[in-house]
C-alpha cells in the first residue's frame, strides 16, 4: 500500500509539471535565503561566543605586591560577583609577554633601563559579567580596589556584534517567510492542478470505497516531495557556495570579526531547513481543495 501511495504521489508530481517545478524553485529560493542568512548569523554567533570567552577585564596595580599579598588580592577579587576567574600577572611576566608579542622586535625591550609595565590582574567575567551592563558593574567594583591604578575592559562592541547577528537572523527569517508564503501558494496551485488532473481517479476511488486517507495522502506526499526537493536544492546550493566562497571570505572574516574560518551550517540547521521544506510542501498540499462529492 505504501508503495502504491508513493507511486501515486510521484505520478501526481509529474502531472503538476511546470507548476511543480516553480514550486520547487520557490521553496529552494526561500530556504536558500533563510539558509544563507543563517549561515552568516551562525558564523557571527561563533565570533561573538569566541570573543565573549576571550573577554578579560584588566586591573592595573599601583605597585607590585608580594607573593602573599598577590595571592590574597586574587582571592578577594575571585569572591566578587560576576567573576569567573582571576590570574595575577607580575611585571616580569608582563614584560615577557610583551617580548613574545613583539617577536623579532623583542630586542628593543632589552634596551629598557627599567621594566615600565605594571603588575596586573587578568579578570575573566562570568557569563553574566560578560554582558555590557554586567561588565560595566564589574569595572566599577574593581575600580574601588585600593590596589587598583586603572581598570580597562568593556564589552559594548561584542554586544554590537551580537545585535548584528540577531538582525541578520531576523532579516533572513523575514525574507524567507515572504518567499515561503509564495512557495506555499505555488505548491497549493500545483496540488490543485493535480486534483483536477486526477479527478477521475478520485471519483473511482470514492466509488469503490477507498479510505479518505488513501485519496488525500498522495497529495500530501507530492507536496512534501516538492518541499524536500526544494530544501535539498537550497542546501546543495549553499554547500556549493560555501565550498567556493568560504576560502575567499575567510581573510575578511578574520580581520573583521576574528574568525579563523567560515563554517557551514550545523547539522541541526541543515535538518531544520529540510524539515521546513517538507512542512512548506505539506502545507501547500493540505491547503489545496478538491471536489469531495460522490
Amino acid at each position, binding site marked *: *500500500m505504501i508503495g*502504491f501511495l508513493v507511486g501515486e504521489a510521484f505520478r501526481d508530481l509529474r502531472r503538476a509539471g511546470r507548476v511543480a517545478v516553480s514550486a520547487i524553485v520557490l521553496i529552494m529560493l526561500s530556504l536558500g535565503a533563510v539558509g544563507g542568512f543563517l549561515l552568516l548569523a551562525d558564523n557571527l554567533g561563533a565570533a561573538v561566543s569566541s570573543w565573549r570567552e576571550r573577554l578579560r577585564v584588566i586591573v592595573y596595580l599601583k605597585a607590585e605586591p608580594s607573593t602573599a599579598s598577590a595571592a590574597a588580592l586574587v582571592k578577594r577579587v575571585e569572591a566578587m560577583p560576576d567573576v569567573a576567574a582571576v590570574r595575577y600577572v607580575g611585571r616580569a611576566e608582563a614584560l615577557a609577554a610583551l617580548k613574545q608579542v613583539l617577536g623579532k622586535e623583542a630586542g628593543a625591550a632589552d634596551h629598557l633601563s627599567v621594566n615600565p609595565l605594571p603588575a596586573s590582574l587578568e579578570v575573566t567575567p562570568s557569563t553574566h559579567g560578560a554582558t555590557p551592563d554586567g561588565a560595566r558593574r564589574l569595572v566599577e567594583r574593581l575600580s574601588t580596589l585600593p590596589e587598583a591604578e586603572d581598570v580597562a575592559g568593556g564589552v559594548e562592541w561584542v554586544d554590537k556584534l551580537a545585535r548584528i547577528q540577531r538582525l541578520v537572523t531576523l532579516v533572513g527569517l523575514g525574507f524567507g517567510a515572504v518567499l515561503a508564503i509564495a512557495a506555499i501558494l505555488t505548491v497549493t496551485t500545483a496540488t490543485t492542478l493535480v486534483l483536477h488532473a486526477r479527478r*477521475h*481517479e478520485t*471519483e*473511482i*476511488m*470514492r*466509488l*469503490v*470505497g*477507498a*479510505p*479518505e486517507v*488513501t*485519496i488525500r495522502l498522495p497529495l500530501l506526499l507530492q507536496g512534501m516531495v516538492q518541499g524536500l526537493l526544494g530544501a535539498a536544492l537550497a542546501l546543495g546550493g549553499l554547500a556549493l557556495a560555501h565550498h567556493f566562497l568560504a576560502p575567499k571570505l575567510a581573510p575578511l572574516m578574520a580581520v573583521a570579526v576574528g574568525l579563523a574560518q567560515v563554517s557551514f551550517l550545523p547539522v541541526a540547521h541543515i535538518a531544520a531547513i529540510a524539515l521546513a521544506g517538507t512542512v512548506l510542501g505539506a502545507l501547500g498540499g493540505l491547503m489545496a481543495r478538491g471536489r469531495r*462529492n*460522490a
Partner: protein
Amino acid sequence: MIALERVSKTFAVGPVKVPALTDVSFRVAKGEFVVLHGRSGAGKTTLLKLLYRAETPSEGDVEVLGQPLGRLRPRAVAALRRNIGVVFQDAKLLPGRNVYDNIAFVLRVLGAPRGEITERVFDALRAVGLHSRARAYPAQLSQGEAQRATLARAIVRRPSLLIADEPTGNLDDEMGAEIIQVIRDVNAGGTTVIFATHQARLAAFLKSRVLVLDGGRLVKDEG
C-alpha cells in the same frame, strides 16, 4: 438485501424544488436480478445513487446490504461501497493506464496484497472475455471492450451488489448482448444485480423482475 421505504428525493434548483423521486418503496432479495426501467429523467440514476450513497433521500429510509444508510459516517459509506460494484453508461476508464492497471487500481487503493492482485485481475478479465487485451490502453479499445473492462473493474472486488446504470446504452445490439451475458453470469454467481435501462425492448428481453419508474414514481413492479 435492499429495502426502500417511502423514499422521496427533491433537488433544489435555486428557490425551486424539483422532485426526482416520490414515495418509492420496494425490496430486493439477495441474488435477484432486477431491471429498473424508465424513460430518461424518470429518476433511475437518482435511485441508483441512493443505493451507493452518492445521494441521500429527502424523505424515507434506504437499507442496502442490511445496513440503514440514513446517518452513515464517511468511513461506513466507504465500507459499504467496497461491497458494491457500479457500471456506468460511459466507461470511465482512466486514459493513462492500460486495462490491467485500470482494474488493478481499485484493488491497490483498497490495499489488496500484491500477490493477489494479478490473479484477481485476470480472473475478472477472463469473466468478461478481455484477458487478451490486458495491455491495451482505453483509446485502443472498442466501446464494447471498454464497457467490458469497466464491468471487470466492478466485479474484481467480488461485490455482493452490482449496480449497472445503462451499461449497454452506448453499444450496438451485439455488443450489448455480450455485456448482458456477462452480467447474467455474475448474477449466476450469487451477486445481486440492479440493471437500469431506458429501453423497453431490452427490459422485456431480460425476462426478470422489472421496476418501472415514471416521473419519479414507481408505477409498476412486475416479477
